[in-house]
């Protein structure tokens, strides 16, 4: 059962992400990404990382994708993205080689066998419970830092995106393309 689920998820995720990576339409890409993330949370559930799965669902599939969706409103999302893609050969060569290397590394028997736990003895416990314990003891400082970071990011997002679009606080208009500026003003 687990095997079937894993393969099913794997294939779906890979497919969806491929769509994301190569689709011309932003909407399609985004939808595929969101779907892929949901499926990844499924993988997490299979692994028994319930809390992580939940976070994945809530934060990624929910919050992040929603952000993207809102962000896209600023762009013209309905149009196909016109890209002058660089020669595919190099791209596939590079990513292919890295894929092969990574797979080879991970598939090598040495890797799976030699990994040892630094902190053991948490297995079998109720996952969210244990996570809560670890998070607020051992990883308290990083957790707080992450919280601050999120706060900063939130403020930054607000500041950056909420500026009046036609007049900037910074000098971004100084060396702007005059045509663009003209267009902005027409709007």
């Amino acid at each position, binding site marked *: 059962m687990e095997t079937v689920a894993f393969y099913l998820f794997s294939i779906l995720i890979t497919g969806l992400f491929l769509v994301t990576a190569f689709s011309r339409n932003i909407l399609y890409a985004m939808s595929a990404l969101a779907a892929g993330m949901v499926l990844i949370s499924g993988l997490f559930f299979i692994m028994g990382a319930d809390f992580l799965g939940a976070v994945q669902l809530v934060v990624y599939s929910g919050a992040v994708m929603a952000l993207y969706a809102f962000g896209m409103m600023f762009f013209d999302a309905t149009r196909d993205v016109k890209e002058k893609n*660089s020669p595919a050969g*190099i791209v596939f060569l*590079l*990513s292919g*080689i*890295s894929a092969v*290397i*990574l797979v080879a590394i991970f598939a090598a028997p040495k890797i799976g066998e030699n990994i040892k736990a630094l902190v053991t003895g948490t297995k079998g416990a109720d996952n969210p419970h244990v996570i809560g314990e670890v998070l607020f003891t051992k990883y308290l400082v990083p957790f707080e830092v992450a919280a601050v970071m999120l706060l900063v990011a939130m403020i930054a997002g607000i500041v950056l995106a909420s500026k009046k679009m036609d007049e900037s606080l910074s000098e971004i208009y100084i060396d702007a393309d005059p045509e663009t500026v003209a267009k902005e003003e027409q709007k």
Partner: protein
Amino acid sequence: MENLVYIALFAPLVSSLFAALFAQKPKIQLVGIVTSILIGISLLASVTLLLDIHESGKAVSVTLMDWIQAGDMDIKFGFTVDQVTAVMMSVVTLVSTVVHVYSNYYMESDKSFNRFFSYLSAFVFSMMVLVMSDNFLGLFIGWEGVGVCSWLLIGFWYERKDETRDVNPSISPSWAANEAFIMNRIADLGMLVGIFMIYWNLGTVKYSEVFAHLDQLSHGMLVGIGIALFIGAMGKSAQFPLHTWLADAMEGPTPVSALIHAATMVTAGVYLVIRANPLYSQIPEVGYFIAVVGTFVAIFAASMALVNRDLKRVIAYSTLSQLGYMFAAAGLGAYWVALFHLAAHAFFKALLFIGAGNVMHAMHDELDMFKMGGLKKQMGWTFFYMGLASLALSGIYPLAGFFSKDTILEVAFNEHTYGIWFTLWLTAGLTAFYSFRQVFLVFFGDERYHEIGAHPHEAKAYALWAMAPLAILAVIFGFYKEDFVEFVTKLLPAYEMSEHTHHMVWILTLVTTAIALTGIIVAFIKYSKGLKRDLNFEQNNKLYKLLYNQYYIPVLYEKAFAKPYKELSDIAWQEIDMQVVDATVDGIAKAVETTGDVSRRAQNGNLSTYLKWMAAGLIFVTLITVISVVIK
């Protein structure tokens, strides 16, 4: 006695510094007088020392102070006055005094009067250091010092411009000065090498210690030292092939020629060989080589003097020739004979030069003898002096030259070096000829000087009186030969003629006098009645042209050394230094710059490209990690 040594040595220095105080001022007569007096004091001190040593037979040594002390090298300013030194000192200061006094007349209207006396006295000081020093390095100080003074004095009229060789064979005073300095430097290197050899083999450069330990050295080393020192002597005494500077040195004022380039400095080389007699008497083969070189120079220089028309150059060649005689004598082991000839030569050659100075003054610095003639009338005393000097130079009894030159010929005969004897004998004839050719061309015959508009006049009385001591010595010095021999052989090895030579002496004397008289008679017949020029001969005779152009040696040096050196230097600078060495350095810098310029293109501002590079880097790094793991 020590005080006398210091007086003799430092009076000229004081004199020079005194004159230097006024060097940039216009003429001050007092300077001439004071310097002359100071040099005179030096003369008095020298003669007193000479007499004292004559009486006591002991050398006077003083040590002034330390000079160079490094490692095991310990060199002091030490001075020794022994028999040879005393003779040299007396000769040098005597001629110097005469020349100083005479210069008051000769330079009377020169605007650099004071400067001249400063240089001249500085020269005397250097010369005194040279002859009085008790070690080789002290000698070297004087050696270089006289070189510099000679440079200053030859180039005294520095403002004259360079001419071509056709107009002025010496090009210009400053050129001649540089030539003299550089040629002497070539020889000085030899001398320096000799000193190094002495130092590293004996650990000292003091004469007394060096000569006492010569037996510690191998024969090869002795030969090496002998040759190295002789190379030094060749430069200062203008021996072939370093002789060209002496004739060009005639660009200097005539008193300078009399003092430096006839009587004193050029004999320094002979002095060195005489001084180093313990060394040279152990290496007769080098001595023989010296004699051969001297003999060759004697006839070589005499031949050039035969045809030259330049009053001073003729005397210069004759000096060269006489230096050859001295080297011949010294090389054959007759050191006192060389010293005797040195002293005698100093007297009559200085006299001759000073006389030439009078003539030049009368002729408004015209030097071409073909434009003179008949000066006997206006310049009786000068004629008398120059005639006397020429007789002495030709070796006519009873003048000094007769005794000294004859003895050299006897030595050559005695040593069974008949080739040397014959050459020197022949040279004696040539000497007589060119000396009297000069006398007759200048003082006899038709008065050709009218063409150049000269109004000849006799020199001032005090100038003529100043010449008198030299004239007297040129006459009587020969009669003191026995005393001289007795005196100097206390230091120098006595040279005894063999029985056979003793018997031959009167024949030799006769033969020599005969050829000298022949030379004079030929000159009389050819030149006393007036100048008959054979232009065809002068222009087309190859031998004449060869001699007149000094065997083309100056031109050869110019073409073989000076020019290629200049061209090589230009190549070294422009081709090698700029195009190779510096270009390599700049090339490296350029390579770095180009690399930067090329790699700058990677920085094209496109994130996509960067990302690709990043991925490539990632692959590279992981690959290396994998490989290194696998290999392990």
